[in-house]
């Protein structure tokens, strides 16, 4: 067992996740919303690594690697969407896209 209690790591991950949720809810800028999503994914990965360290299994780190891959893919598509939004509406406000029609 690691010298750091796993509960404290989970508290840290929970605080980071809560901050990410707060940022996602408070900000309307698309760039800030993407950053908040990154914070939340990072907190989830921290949970996986803490669990892998607690039970001495390597699976937690493998899961973090997959989360890392998913975050990279998500941020690529998200930033391409941000560019598209900026090109079409000239602002980065998420509410500007609420008038889209399919």
């Amino acid at each position: 067992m690691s010298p750091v209690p796993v509960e404290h790591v989970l508290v840290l991950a929970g605080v980071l996740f809560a901050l990410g949720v707060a940022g996602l809810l408070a900000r309307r800028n698309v760039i800030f919303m993407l950053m908040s999503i990154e914070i939340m994914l990072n907190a989830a990965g921290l949970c996986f690594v803490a669990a892998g360290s607690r039970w001495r299994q390597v699976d937690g780190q493998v899961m973090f690697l997959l989360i890392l891959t998913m975050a990279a893919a998500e941020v690529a598509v998200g930033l391409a969407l941000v560019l598209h939004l900026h090109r079409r509406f000239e602002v980065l406000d998420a509410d500007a896209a609420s008038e889209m029609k399919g």
Partner: protein
Amino acid sequence: MTLAFYLSAVVAVIATALTITRLHAIHALLYLTVSLLAVSLVFYTLGATFMAALEVIIYAGAIMVLFVFVVMMLNLGSRAIEQERRILKPGTWLGPGILSLLLMVEFGWLLAEAPVRGTAVAHFEPKEVGIALYGPYLIAVELASILLLGALVAAYHLGSREPGRRET
């Protein structure tokens, strides 16, 4: 090791709280990078050294650089010069600078006492992670590669400048 964990946890929480409250995107990105570096130190104290390195390389390196590129691309024009002038003021980078300096001092201190570290922490070599990755998790690796390929195609399609084709 325990003190290092709590110190980097405090730095991570402070930097994240500053990230979501900044008005300027570049300031927020600086604080977010500091937060990711702090989480990387947390990984190091938990014994996941390979994951700490990957966090620095992929998160703080690649993804943050992508963010900075897009933010810089979007701010082209007359606002850019005035913005650069504001960025160069010490007040804008002093906060992230002090926090990352704290992390760097802590990192040096950890490296200095590294041989003393006992077997209390579950320590995994990159080799074990690789064996697990290409053994029981092989299908997950294939799925991740397909996901990355899909993201590549989607980002290229969304980012291409030519009008017409599929735009409605």
